């Protein structure tokens, strides 16, 4: 809370930054060290999309969250967000679940696997592939 905007830009990059496993560090930075979401975790196939109007929480999003928010102007699954932004899957689930809970993103439903009408619909569609 005491950090001021612009402060981080004055910090020079360390010469050995590249020696660190960047992906691993990034995953923990993204989630601030959390490996579980504070809110219920969404399945990796959940389709997420940006709200049609800018969510009131938009100004509070950090850089990575904004990137996610921009990307899902075209709705896509959490797994696809993870692949496109090269965010490890675990981190993507945590970040996106929290953004959905905060109202920054919308989430689609996952298919009810016990719904036989849905399964019949899927079968017909596969037959037409």
């Amino acid at each position, binding site marked *: 809370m005491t950090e001021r905007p612009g402060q981080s830009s004055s910090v020079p990059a360390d010469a050995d930054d590249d020696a660190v496993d960047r992906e691993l560090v990034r995953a923990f930075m993204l989630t601030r060290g959390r*490996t579980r979401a504070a809110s219920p975790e969404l399945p990796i196939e959940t389709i997420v999309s940006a709200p049609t109007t800018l969510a009131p929480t938009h100004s509070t999003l950090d850089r990575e969250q904004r990137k996610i928010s921009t990307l899902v102007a075209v709705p896509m699954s959490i797994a696809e967000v993870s692949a496109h932004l090269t965010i490890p*899957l675990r981190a993507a*689930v945590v970040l996106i679940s929290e953004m959905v809970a905060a109202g920054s993103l*919308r989430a689609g439903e996952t298919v009810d696997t016990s719904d*036989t009408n849905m399964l*019949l619909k899927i*079968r017909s569609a596969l037959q037409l592939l």
Partner: protein
Amino acid sequence: MNDVIDRSATQSAKIVIAGGFGVGKTTFVGAVSEINPLSTEASMTAAAAASDDAGEVDTKTSTTVAMDFGRIGVSDEIIIYLFGTPGQQRFAFMWDQVSLGALGAIVLLDTARLADSHAAIDYFEARQIPFIVAANRFAHSPAATAEQVRGALALPDAIPVVDLDARDRGSVKNALITLVEHLLVLRSALPAPVHT
């Protein structure tokens, strides 16, 4: 404000394609996916410590494994994702995230290495995740009938065993249909196929 589930939006489902290295998972996914298969990274961190054979895997504190996946737009409202997940026991840390809530799974195998599929079969049986078994035809591998594969893996009659060519779209499509029909049989929405 609290209605974060968008009921008007597209619904999604997932199917797991499990199998050992080089068994054709990514080829299978690519044969029917409407997008080029994408790759995401699953990290083995804390979960690995609890795994029985984590020590055999790697001594690093973190290992990552790539998981390839694709998607099929079934209709305007339904998208199915196909996740290819490594079938060996040492990757069990990522199975829950990929498999829980899945429609079902296809255990892809090479008849030359049947034992590679044991861990995945045991896992899906234990979690009661419906699955079928599919033998990918490799030129170098012994020909085996579905019944021989069933016998070698001690699979119950109720579990469909098919053979396929993972490079062939029609072949892969038929395997997916077999899985969905198996789900319908399990829910008594289709009669069980008669085995001769």
